């Protein structure tokens, strides 16, 4: 079974600075998907960014980018120019390719990000 580990329960960053959230995962599969989700106090789960494992190029979405290291099984999220609205819990997640009986999104335990004005 796959596991996702987020070793930083809490992080903080000054507004306008850059912060990196760490995520490692364990899998024996060669192809899969990785995600970062944001959960603000509203509780809604919001997709931030996604990465297909077969793509070597790191995904980027505006101020959010990832550093995907497949061999190291690492998938970190970099937030540039941090804004107050970025304050939230961030979850790293893993999804297998279709394989009935193994179809689920596996989540890490989350990192709470605080933005300091």
């Amino acid at each position, binding site marked *: 079974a796959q596991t*996702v580990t987020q070793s930083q329960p809490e992080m903080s960053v000054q507004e306008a600075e850059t912060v990196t959230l760490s995520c490692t995962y364990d899998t024996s599969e060669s192809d899969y*998907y990785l*995600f970062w989700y944001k959960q603000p106090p*509203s*509780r*809604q*789960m919001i*997709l931030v960014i*996604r990465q297909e494992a077969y793509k070597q190029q790191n995904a980027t979405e505006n101020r959010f980018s990832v550093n995907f290291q497949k061999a190291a099984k690492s998938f970190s999220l970099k937030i540039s120019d941090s804004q107050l609205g970025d304050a939230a819990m961030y*979850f790293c997640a893993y*999804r*297998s*390719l*279709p394989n*009935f*009986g193994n*179809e*689920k*999104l596996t*989540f*890490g*335990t*989350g990192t709470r990000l605080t933005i300091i004005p």
Partner: protein
Amino acid sequence: NAGVTQTPKFRILKIGQSMTLQCTQDMNHNYMYWYRQDPGMGLKLIYYSVGAGITDKGEVPNGYNVSRSTTEDFPLRLELAAPSQTSVYFCASSYPPGQGYYGYTFGSGTRLTVV
């Protein structure tokens, strides 16, 4: 475009009571899921469904039941509520990987307290 709709948003149950959490999606997604999120933790899969009439257990299925009679609806049933079921419940849906956008769309969650 409603996406994934969960009802109710909040509920307090007494030990031993039963209830159904409703979930409906209007995106014609084949796959639907129920997760629970305990305080300070990530989400754990309770049950999932890959299509109408097909359901399977996730990591933490004990104390819950599901059914999937239509593509749109995936209700979660708690038969005998216990304090350990106090949690926030999320319903989600998606296409299968390889068929369009493969991310999950989540509902807004149901906060359930069992006293």
